[in-house]
């Protein structure tokens, strides 16, 4: 093969390598700009990823549903669609779950099935957007701050994740404690 031919193939590979991250960015920007925002109640804990650094895992309150209307061929590891609603306080709440896309305007997000009980028809799942990447030394304090606020047993303290949703795709924007970004608390803690 001639050098120029190899080079042309290389250019195609280069474009693909640039396209994938660029597409990742553009898709997310679109969802952030035009998607609907939801507040998901959550609890953060911090693990880490060898290549992408520290993050806090978010355990959402929306994690199970009655799946009476669903067919019985659900297995752990399957992806299902979780349709969303908003409660009187403005937090996201579960409307229904489905294996296939419904003919409705309602927003939905994808979730991974963790277990399914055939007898009770109850499905446990995990929402996909459960990683919030943070600066290396801030992930642990973020978890501690959350614990501190949660320990007060004060029902007015609320931790939630702000998520933009569009056509089944979701982008996690920020974590909030009582309507202030978690970054505000980390800075406050650092200044003290």
């Amino acid at each position, binding site marked *: 093969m001639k*050098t120029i031919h190899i080079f042309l193939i290389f250019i195609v590979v280069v474009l*693909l390598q640039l396209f994938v991250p660029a597409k990742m960015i553009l898709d997310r920007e679109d969802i952030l700009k035009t998607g609907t925002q939801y507040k998901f109640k959550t609890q953060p804990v911090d693990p880490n990823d060898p290549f992408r650094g520290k993050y806090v895992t978010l355990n959402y309150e929306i994690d199970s549903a009655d799946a009476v209307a669903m067919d019985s061929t659900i297995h752990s590891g399957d992806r299902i669609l979780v349709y969303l609603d908003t409660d009187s306080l403005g937090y996201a709440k579960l409307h229904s779950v489905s294996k296939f896309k419904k003919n409705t305007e309602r927003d939905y997000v994808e979730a991974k099935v963790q277990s399914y009980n055939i007898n009770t028809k109850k499905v446990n799942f995990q929402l996909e957007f459960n990683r919030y990447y943070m600066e290396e030394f801030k992930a642990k304090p973020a978890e501690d701050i959350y614990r501190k606020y949660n320990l007060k047993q004060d029902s007015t303290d609320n931790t939630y994740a702000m998520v933009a949703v569009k056509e089944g795709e979701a*982008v996690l924007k920020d974590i909030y404690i009582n309507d202030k970004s978690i970054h505000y608390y980390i800075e406050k803690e650092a200044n003290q």
Partner: protein
Amino acid sequence: MKSKILNELTELLEHNVISKDVASDISSYYQAKSDEQPNRLFTVFGVLGSALVGLGIILILAHNWDNFSILVKTFFAFLPLIIGQTISGYSILKNKGQTWKESSGTFLFFAIGASIALVSQIYHIPGDLSEYLFTWILLGLPLIYVLNSKAVSMLIIVFATYYACELGYNFGTVNKAPWFYLAILLGAIPFYINLLRKSPNANTTSIFNWLYALSIVIVLGTFIDYNWSLGFVMYAMLFGLFYNLGKISVYSNQQLRRNSFLLIGSLGTIVLLLILSFNMIWKEMHYELISVYSQEMIISVVLFICATGLLLYSKKSQKSPKFNLFQYVFLLFVIVFVIGNGNYGLGTIFTNVLVFTLGVFVVKIGADSFRFSVLNYGLLIISAMIVCRFFDTDMSFVLRGILFVAVGLGFFLINYFMLKKQKELKQKL
């Protein structure tokens, strides 16, 4: 090697063993030979350097700099990628040497990982490690061919193994069979086959022999789902396939230490049979229901067909094929497994007989060919089996002691007699 010979030349000249012309011919021959080959050491350091810089960049980006705006972060996500692409493109276009291509390819491979990692951080993109690794591998795979890069090819095998383990050995949560691992291997193998054709005896090719063999052995276990007892069959078939692959002329003409498939096939078979020589394993399996329509079964059957095909091929291509029990073990294993599932006692007995026969067979080959390594490998197989039997039988300590002494004496005596016989033969000659 070269400098050693050149040093010798002066000594030979001084003692008038060779003439000046011969000496200059020899030195110019080695000079020309070294000019033809690119500097290998330089390539190795180039690749190592690029790999370290690339990994360093990934770690620095993994810090996840909060103070930078999204725009700045995005710029840094693309910067290493574009640098890597520019250098790689330059080395292709200017047809630079292998050192350039290997080093720039290695750097670009890590730059791809850094780039998608940083984008994932900026937008908190979900997905676990295996999904991220898969995207990375797919984007890096074509570099093997466009840059003709061995280093990238090795990285792809290592990362594909990492990906498969991450997905398949996911303890506690849902295990998934990493089918895409096979697709990645299919994508990378043509390069390896080409290497086997062009330079089967090169050091790098033998590294590939080992990488592929080890990777497949590690990953095969991820395909075991519920039918764990069929896992034994899967591995037995794989080792049978490996052994027969090692008997094909491409591999069997090489030194034994380069023939990873033969070595892993032989050792793997023995270890597997030793595990199955315990009665309790067969007892456990006896109560397991084996599902015929399962991925374990499909994989076992496919591996069985491939191994049989290779066995026939290697027998056909040899002019005077010698009987080698190891090549047939996978066939015997199937029979033993079927019997053992019906009657676990018989399964145990047959496995023990098989291990013992293999041991004796290896000892015989070693004795016939006067190879001490082979002879002792055979003795090791027999003694390993005897040692294993001490765990599940109610023998008296005295009897066990006597058996140990007997095995030890056996080692000494057989080696001693062979040494003696070898000396006698040499004297006759």
